[in-house]
């Protein structure tokens, strides 16, 4: 019978059916970071258990780490303690750890694909909701809570209920200069922040298969903002080429490729839900509110409350307008900004930095704007330096940070924003206070972020 990609991976990892439509699912790769994990290790110790497969586990330091100097970690005892706990736990249980500043360190969702840890047809989990990123490589990847982290550490499995499947087919090409971030925001605007709850979204259609691997990661990353459990894209030549480059020197690759090709949905597979999106309708989009679905294009104005038919959405919009200190009828271009953040697991990869450098080249960041660019990994940083992007950033007056991490995406390190400050940010969440208490976030693509940095207000590259 025809199977979806999700079913193929699920069936290949189901060790046992547990009843109550739950399966015991094997986990091929488990990523850890310094937040959300110490409690899991504590319980392991208390229950006298050990880590079953340290060789399928890897940890990195990313969420709260400084971006200017390693020494700065010493300056905050609370943050240092979190990092130290991770270091102790990894050393006690023999788990490989990439420490701040080491060649393989970076944001979990940036480093795992670039180091070849994510293969098509595998399962991958991490104590972080944006684990959905890795679905770009045809892996079933999703975020878990601390208790599930403990479960995976102890058993290398999870007790899971089958996910529902949803296919989003994007027909017609994206217009020139429209990024997968715009597409992601468009989709979330269409289906809502709850549209994907309980589902794994498979992105399909020629438009998707034309996207680069990095653009796909951005799209899968944002799946969780539509409430989805995971996002996934079937294997094609782009996937294979990417894996060839990251697994450079790996002897088995030709055999693998034939196996990997299998990890696509069969032509007549049936999905629980189907959505079709017209790619030609997607334009540059920026959030105006406090959840990612509250986003508009440059041609639209901030919606009037009377335009909402759904009362709860109307209330949410009202709260958002108040919090964001903006008014219905305003256009994006009228909104002045203080900060621009380029980075995060959504848009902190080399392609993103290239787009930003392309726009900043020969131009200057507006005098009222602080622009911070944080590479997603050491590898991304080094590549940016090799390509001279750091010089472009510096000449434009942007602050390119030396150490990778989540930084301003979550505001847990010294890069958090002050109350009343407003940013355009390439990250994924514009929740109240996400980048610092009282701060206001507008989510956008790297190109829009760069243009906004130059103009001092939310702007499209076409305004330059």
């Amino acid at each position, binding site marked *: 019978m025809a199977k979806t990609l999700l079913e193929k991976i699920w069936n290949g990892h189901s060790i046992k059916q547990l009843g109550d439509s739950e399966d015991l699912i094997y986990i091929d790769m488990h990523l850890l970071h310094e*937040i959300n994990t110490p409690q899991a290790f504590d319980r392991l110790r208390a229950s006298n258990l050990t880590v079953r497969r340290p060789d399928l586990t890897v940890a990195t330091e990313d969420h709260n780490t400084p971006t200017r100097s390693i020494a700065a970690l010493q300056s905050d005892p609370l943050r240092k303690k979190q990092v130290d706990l991770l270091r102790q736990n990894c050393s006690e249980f023999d788990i*490989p750890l990439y420490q701040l500043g080491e060649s393989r360190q970076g944001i979990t969702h940036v480093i795992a694909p670039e180091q070849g840890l994510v*293969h098509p047809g595998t399962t991958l989990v991490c104590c972080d909701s944006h684990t959905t990123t890795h679905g770009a490589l045809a892996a079933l990847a999703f975020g878990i*809570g601390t208790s599930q982290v403990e479960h995976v550490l102890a058993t290398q499995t999870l007790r899971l209920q089958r996910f529902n499947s949803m296919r989003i087919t994007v027909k017609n090409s994206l217009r020139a200069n429209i990024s997968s971030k715009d597409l992601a925001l468009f989709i979330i605007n269409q289906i809502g922040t709850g549209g994907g709850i309980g589902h794994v979204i498979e992105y399909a259609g020629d438009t998707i298969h034309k996207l680069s691997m990095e653009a796909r990661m951005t799209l899968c990353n944002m799946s969780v903002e539509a409430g989805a459990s995971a996002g996934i894209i079937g294997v094609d030549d782009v996937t294979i080429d990417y894996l060839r480059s990251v697994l450079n020197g790996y002897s088995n690759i030709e055999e693998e490729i034939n196996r990997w090709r299998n990890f696509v949905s069969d032509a007549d597979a049936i999905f629980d839900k189907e959505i079709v999106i017209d790619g030609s309708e997607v334009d540059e989009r920026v959030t105006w509110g406090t*959840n990612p679905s509250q986003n508009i294009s440059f041609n639209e104005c901030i919606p009037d409350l009377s335009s909402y038919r759904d009362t709860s959405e109307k209330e949410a919009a009202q709260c958002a307008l108040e919090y964001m200190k903006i008014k219905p009828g305003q256009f994006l271009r009228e909104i002045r900004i203080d900060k621009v953040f380029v980075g995060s697991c959504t848009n902190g990869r080399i392609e993103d930095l290239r787009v930003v450098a392309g726009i900043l080249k020969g131009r200057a960041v507006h005098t009222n704007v602080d622009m911070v660019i944080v590479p997603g990994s050491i590898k991304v940083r080094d590549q940016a330096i090799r390509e001279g992007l750091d010089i472009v950033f510096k000449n434009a007056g942007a602050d390119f940070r030396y150490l990778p991490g989540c930084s301003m995406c*979550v505001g847990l390190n010294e890069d958090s924003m002050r109350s009343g400050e407003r940013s355009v940010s390439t990250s994924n969440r514009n*929740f109240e206070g996400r980048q610092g208490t009282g701060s206001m976030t507008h989510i956008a693509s790297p190109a829009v972020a760069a243009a906004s940095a130059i103009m001092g207000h939310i702007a499209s590259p076409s305004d330059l």
Partner: protein
Amino acid sequence: MSREHIRGQGVPLLRNNVDTDQIIPARFCYQAKRVGHGDSLFGNWRQDPSFVLNDSRYADATILVAGREFATGSSREYAVWAIKDYGFKVVIAQSFGDIFYKNAIINDLLPLKTTEQGIETLWGILARSPEAVIDIDLEDKTITIENNVISAIMEERFKRKYILNLDDISQTLEDIESIEGYEKSRYRYLATTIERGENFTSAKSK
């Protein structure tokens, strides 16, 4: 009281889309323990004196009544810990974020779904009568408040899991032979993070 029957006063949290960043802002998630997070619950909103949790009439409540899409967003289990620590035993909402829902059951916090109308009824009554008692019957899947009987929604398997309060890890470890069997037949050339011979595929290069 059995685990099927729960009684208590409720707090109406009159908002939809309350994400985990609001339930416990990231900067409060630094303590490496599962307990002691009650003070951080709704850490930012609590600074506003008019926020409902600061209303002393609701001080004894053990049931939080939220709206739609409660606790979407990050996977932080702190959200569950903070709600429990504060003293809540149940959260009623129209829908929940996936990860939160699972985290809640594992941590013995009852996440109970009901209809939009059910939420409206609860909110309406709790807003005018903070002392109203909510009666939850998991067997019948009903929520009763002032003679209104509202249907609660909970899948059987989650209900059973909550009522039996079983420990997942010990259950899974009973199947350890199946796991070992799976590992023996598992495809050999998958990525590993520790170098083991020449077919190791991960980070060793560069």
